[in-house]
């Protein structure tokens, strides 16, 4: 097994781990973290495609590398926007939750709001 294949396998594992976090964890901040795990896992899988494209004296195909660099920056921009939304939600509602607001819930359900 080469280090490239190993890196690809970590990438595959990270995608699953991140997906689990996005589904299971109710806190928005943790969901953002988990989503970033998925992203970096996808980048790693793409990274081994770059490594397998080694040719012309290069150890790694530069085109996927450039796309991953672009991807990392765009992922950061998206995370920044998501975090700003979470913080704004917290400022407005006093809590950061993705649960639908108390009014939309059945009566008696709002007891845990404060």
């Amino acid at each position, binding site marked *: 097994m080469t280090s490239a294949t190993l890196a690809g396998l970590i990438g595959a594992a990270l995608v699953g781990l991140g997906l689990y976090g996005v589904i299971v964890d109710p806190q928005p901040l943790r969901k953002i973290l988990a989503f970033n795990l998925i992203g970096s896992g996808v980048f790693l899988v793409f990274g081994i495609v770059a490594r397998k494209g080694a040719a012309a004296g290069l150890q790694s195909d530069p085109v996927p590398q*450039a796309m991953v660099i672009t991807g990392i920056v765009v992922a950061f921009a998206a995370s*920044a926007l998501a975090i700003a939304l979470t913080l704004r939600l917290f400022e407005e509602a006093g809590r950061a939750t993705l649960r639908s607001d108390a009014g939309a819930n059945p009566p008696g359900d709002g007891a845990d709001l404060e």
Partner: protein
Amino acid sequence: MSVLLALDVGLALLVFAVAAWTVFAPGAFAATVGYVVYGLLLSLVWIRLFAVDVALTEAAIGSGVTGVLLIGAAARLRRAGTTTAEETPSGSTRLFAACLCLLVSAALAGVVLLLPDQGPTLAPQAMERLPETGLGNPVTAVLIAYRSFDTVLEKVVLVLAVVGVWSLAADRYWGGAPGEARAERPEPTLAFFAQVLAPVGILVGVHVFWVGADEPGGAFQGGAILAAMWMILMMARLTEAPQSNAFWLRLALIAGPVVFLAAGVAGVAVAGGFFAYPSGLAKPIILFIETFMTFTIAVTLAMLVAGPPRREPRQ
């Protein structure tokens, strides 16, 4: 070789363990700190894939700048309260999610294992035309010459993200400054640290940008380091974030994409194609564009971390 393999396996296990920590850690703050460590370890994996440019970007932006953003958010969300029992998914949901995620991971792992040893590649084409750009780093050539339109659009995404973040400000703060005011008496340890680190860091940032033409590095990595230095100065409260309605700030935010796009349009007249650079002048033009881009990236990243305006604008 077997030592290297052992190191690779160890690194892989470590990355996986820290990633698992960010998902399963009991507190959001602990998870966030785990994510920063994870990003740094991941950049080592990128080095093992011989993608040093990506490793630098991952360390600077994926781990560093994102880390500041996440830790700041986790600290402010500490009072957000813990998860209520009702929000916590039931055991069967967890089991179902775990099975689904295992399936996804297994499918991806299967694809990774089935990849041919020598995949399709654009490396020969990238190297063949590299002398025409005057650059020595093929990754920079892809970013600024071969696929410049992607890079311009990415800059536009960054500007849109700043617009999105700023538009979350309360009405009365619109146009004001994000973050805290400059301190009368900055905290001495932090101020000393910032004063020692920032001059060195700014030099390193400019160097990383400059060598990016021929060696690993470039506008993104250098810009992220410059942004980090500005953030350190703001955190030490030696300086304060600019007002979001400042004319120079708005100019700085769009300078990179505007110069890049202008160079692209000029290519139609001068070199006979959108984003074509006249031969012989390619390298100076690329460095000119990259200078503005580095500056814009530094300002944009710092503003994205600073968040929406939180103080009323001064008149």
